[in-house]
């Protein structure tokens, strides 16, 4: 095994100091995060406090957040109407998203104990989706199976009733709206952090140097000799 290059702290810190990071670029990263994650008010305040322009019209964030909230509160029909108000093409071009929204609607009907309505809905709305796309069949079967149990929460697929399922659907909706607005759906900041972890792992192969192991403090750890 080839020996790794040893870089002592002083030398590493010297290299760190030589890097030029522009404040405005960091501001953009923060603004991008606030905007993508839907913190409208914070984005607006940040615009005022830092002079950074949001990379998306803040008004569209409010609309997007309203849709997300609707899904998270279980008001799926309301969410669907809002999405169509925003951009009717979103659901047209996203069959998987539309299916997941329909599935969520069924879950909500079951949650509310509206069994007859649920059955009708499953047959009229969900079954055709399964016919169009056999990939959805498994999900349909799992969801419909909930109807067979009195204690739905503790049934084999009871986790579909969890908040996490709503959150999952809501995230999917959020991403689809962002994409339709030609905005990248993921904020840039988390991927940069992942890149740092990856870059350090790669450098570990060739060198011993002060690492940052705790991202939230960015503290440099002394290289282990």
């Amino acid at each position: 095994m080839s020996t790794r290059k040893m870089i002592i702290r002083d030398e590493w810190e010297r290299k760190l100091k030589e890097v030029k990071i522009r404040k405005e670029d960091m501001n953009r990263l923060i603004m991008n995060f606030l905007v993508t994650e839907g913190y409208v008010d914070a984005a607006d305040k940040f615009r005022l406090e830092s002079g950074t322009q949001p990379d998306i019209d803040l008004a569209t964030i409010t609309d997007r957040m309203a849709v997300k909230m609707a899904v998270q509160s279980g008001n799926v029909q309301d969410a669907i109407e809002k999405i169509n108000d925003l951009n009717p093409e979103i659901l047209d071009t996203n069959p998987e998203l539309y299916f997941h929204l329909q599935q969520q609607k069924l879950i909500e009907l079951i949650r509310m104990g509206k069994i007859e309505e649920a059955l009708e809905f499953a047959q009229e709305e969900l079954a055709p989706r399964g016919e169009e796309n056999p990939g959805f069949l498994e999900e349909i079967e799992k969801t419909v199976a909930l109807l067979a149990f009195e204690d739905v929460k503790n049934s084999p697929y009871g986790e579909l009733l969890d908040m996490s399922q709503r959150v999952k659907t809501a995230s999917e909706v959020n991403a689809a709206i962002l994409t339709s607005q030609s905005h990248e759906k993921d904020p840039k900041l988390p991927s940069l952090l992942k890149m740092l972890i990856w870059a350090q792992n790669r450098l570990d192969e060739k060198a011993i140097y002060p690492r940052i192991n705790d991202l939230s403090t960015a503290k440099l750890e002394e290289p282990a000799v």
Partner: protein
Amino acid sequence: MARIVRSYLLHYGYQDTLESFENASEVNSSSAQVNGFGGQLEYALNHRKVLRQFINSGDIDSAFQKLREWYPSVVQDDNSVVCFLLHSQRFIEHIRRGELEAAVIYGRAHLAKYYNNKAFSSLWTDTAALLAYGKPSDSSVGYLLDSRQREFVADAINSAVLATNPNLKDQEGCMVSCLEKLLRQLTVCTLERRSLADEDQGEAFFLHRDLNCKSRLA
């Protein structure tokens, strides 16, 4: 993730944004105190926010006044970087408003003395050069009239105020934000890896290029 955003906002004193962010997210302000930096960065938050507001709006006189009132040690030594930056910015604001006579008077009274200081020389020369142009914003030193210069001064004052914290544990830690440290580390790691590699390891990371290369990040 949220902690890094929170730490950034705290570090630079973006108080209003921070409050809004904390209200909207699940980030609990007390949980961040667990790691030592949280407490340090909260020092003088409101004052730093106010000072930044003054500087961002070009009201350097108020910034000076408040600094004398709140953190006299920061502006005590007229030969300090902080004083030089504030004076040069005041001069720039005169130029921006077309107040050439006032600029000259101010420059003679407050800026001339920094001429000999090598550390300030390039900024000094550029600032003085503003007088040479009928339309300074179109000149090579026009960048000084940009809001980014105000931000640069605001950041410097911000760091200086953070440094007055009597409970300061980590001098270095307060001067550079957490996010900046992470980005620097990322850049150096990719550069270093590149220089150590036998074969081409691909591009090194440069934030500015990365942000401007993507067709539609911001």
